[in-house]
């Protein structure tokens, strides 16, 4: 009989909010992450998820006794939760990095800064992507 053939669709690997949380834990070792100090500049609506400009800046005097040690950027729905880790120091003068990222879907981006006193600060932004980065595209 022409019975119902179960259709098994293989979903693309996708980072889940749980993976995002675990990736953040890997960086912070469970320390509390406070909201603030960090500014995440990314367009709220992008046409092409393959190259999305992003700037992270942190409000910090960048002095030897009070500076940003590192900046970590995460996403919610790409196959992997990490986007990039950036290590700087007091000599940077200004705690700001820019790069271009891939987004596989409309999602939340989280930036976390580690300060020299060991505290963590974060900012997040939601981005709507109309054409996703091609994790599924055939080549």
């Amino acid at each position, binding site marked *: 009989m022409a019975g119902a053939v179960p259709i098994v669709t293989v979903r693309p690997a996708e980072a889940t909010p749980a993976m995002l949380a675990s990736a953040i834990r890997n960086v912070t070792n469970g320390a509390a992450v406070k909201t603030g100090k960090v500014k995440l500049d990314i367009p709220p609506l992008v046409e092409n998820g393959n190259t999305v400009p992003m700037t992270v800046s942190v409000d910090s005097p960048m002095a030897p006794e009070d500076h940003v040690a590192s900046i970590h950027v995460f996403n919610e729905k790409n*196959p992997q939760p990490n986007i*990039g880790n*950036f290590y*700087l120091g007091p000599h940077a003068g*200004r705690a700001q*990095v*820019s790069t271009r*990222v891939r987004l596989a879907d409309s999602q939340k981006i989280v930036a976390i800064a580690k300060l020299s006193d060991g505290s963590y600060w974060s900012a997040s932004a939601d981005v709507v992507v109309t054409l996703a980065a091609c994790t*599924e595209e055939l080549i």
Partner: protein
Amino acid sequence: MASALINVPAKAKRGDIIEIKTLMSHIMETGYRHTATGEVVPRDIITSFTCRFNGAEIFRADLFPAISANPFITFFTTVTQSGKFEFEWIGDKGFSETASASITVE
């Protein structure tokens, strides 16, 4: 061929905060794409970027597949003396490229 674009001011005053812009041509293949026959295209990305000034590390980044092709990274540094910035990109499949730029500090 891999090639780098570096933008560093040629001159600066002592104590100035300068912006450094870098771009390395690279496919940044994510490892999540498939060919028409269903095979996974192996990952081929730059995993690490380092900038040193007169031999001392001033900036480092770990890159993941979520960084766009031809990774473009900008950051800042305070200049206190003339010298040479050295940039290094390291990645999968033995990828390793370097570039340098000099600055004169008055």
